[in-house]
């Protein structure tokens, strides 16, 4: 018999669901604040393009809205747009990575403010999960605690050390849950095409903003940091994609991003749900 068939348990659950509205409302304070913050973010969609100085060999496309940030990075050889959605995708999920295909997934990146020594301490520890079987290249294979690190220091002096802490598995907290609450999540999808490496970097800071609604101002600051040029470059540096001095950004229309990705963003005023769909669509496309 399923435990959910137990009448007593059901009674307890029903009773708990019906607790006084004021307690539910009280605990939702942060949700309401987050909603306001998200509302303020609406219409602030940003899209930037990065190009490798002088060579025209690479592009960065980024967008942000409603507390979600996403960055798409394409590194291609030669000139012109690569329709990666139609390419030979060999990497998508951790399973795919673990099966030996190219690729690195950086996951569970925690913003600087979560570090133990940061002034605004959320109690977390910096962690970047790297799932990398073959690595982006031989010299870019990460090892736990190994030498492959990149440090990002923001304007407030928060140091973020991007250090792979796990290989081949997701981090877990004490309860055995996937431990990605309250932080920005970063996935880097990579694959090889035509002898060149290609990357899609997804940054999703939604949960961070949602989880820390009582600190919306700081969350906003962190969001900016997460999306900042330096931050992106730190990731790329860690992935051994680019040198910092070899890159710059420029504004790219949303429509171009949509055309590039083959997805609809719903215009510049996109909602959480729409951006979640974009993320899901990207994952599906890359699969």
């Amino acid at each position, binding site marked *: 018999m399923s435990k959910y068939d137990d*009448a007593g348990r059901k009674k307890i659950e029903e009773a708990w669901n019906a607790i006084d509205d004021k307690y*539910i409302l009280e*605990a939702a304070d942060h949700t309401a604040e987050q909603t306001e913050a998200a509302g303020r973010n609406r219409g602030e969609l940003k899209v930037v393009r990065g190009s490798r100085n002088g060579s025209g060999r690479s592009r960065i496309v980024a967008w942000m809205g409603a507390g979600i940030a996403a960055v798409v990075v394409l590194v291609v050889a030669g000139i012109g747009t690569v329709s990666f959605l139609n390419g030979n995708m060999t990497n998508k999920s951790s399973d795919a990575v673990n099966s030996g295909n190219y690729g690195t997934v950086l996951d569970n990146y925690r913003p600087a403010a979560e570090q133990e020594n940061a002034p605004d301490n959320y109690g977390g520890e910096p962690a970047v999960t790297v799932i990398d079987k073959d690595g982006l290249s031989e010299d870019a294979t990460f090892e736990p605690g190994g030498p492959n690190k990149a440090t990002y220091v923001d304007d407030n002096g928060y140091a973020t050390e991007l250090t792979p802490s796990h290989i081949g598995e997701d981090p877990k907290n004490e309860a055995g*849950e996937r431990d990605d609450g309250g932080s920005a999540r970063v996935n880097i999808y990579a694959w090889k095409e035509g002898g060149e490496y290609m990357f899609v970097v997804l940054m999703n800071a939604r949960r961070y903003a949602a989880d*820390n609604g009582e600190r919306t101002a700081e969350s906003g600051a962190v969001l900016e940091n997460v999306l900042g040029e330096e931050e992106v470059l730190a990731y790329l540096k860690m992935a051994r994609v680019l040198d910092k001095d070899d890159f710059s950004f420029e504004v790219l229309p949303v429509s171009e991003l949509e055309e590039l990705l083959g997805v609809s963003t719903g215009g510049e005023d996109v909602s959480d*749900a729409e951006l979640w769909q974009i993320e899901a669509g990207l994952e599906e496309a890359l699969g």
Partner: protein
Amino acid sequence: MEDADIIALYWARDEKAIEASYQKYSRYCMSIARNIVQTDEDAEECLNDTWMGAWEAIPPARPTVLSVFLGKITRNIALNKVRAGKCLKRGGEKAMLPFDELSDTICDGRSVEEKAESSEITAVMNAFLAELPEEKRKIFVSRYWYGEEYGEIAGRYGYSRGKVAMMLERLKAKLRDRLMKEGILQ
């Protein structure tokens, strides 16, 4: 739009009520749904069902707190969806953990008094919550009503995950003891 105006639209059977509910509370309800079903697709479905549920419930219902009223509908729909195995794989089982934790602890090795009504148990739970310090109460409700993860709660209150986990263990035990004392649990 004020909640009273939205509720009036429901009572007038004006479909703008749904649009207004979506505009004002979709994020709130979405956050509840996502904590349970974990995937955006399933959460979106829960939201759609929420508006339908509200449309059917109002009237005759006249919610005093519309956000919580809608949130409760969302929560029920999402929990039922997971338990019926209708969710996509990602996170489905894991998502039940906070909700199972509470009933597991309370019901562990004990039976619920047959004659006890849900409303009676709710009254004991409300009394228990009322006696808690505000922060502990919010943490307890965040975990077991909203289904938030330890990390989320820890981040918001500036505690370590371990401290939050320990605090919740103690609070659950206190609630269980309270229910035993009141004769709800045997």
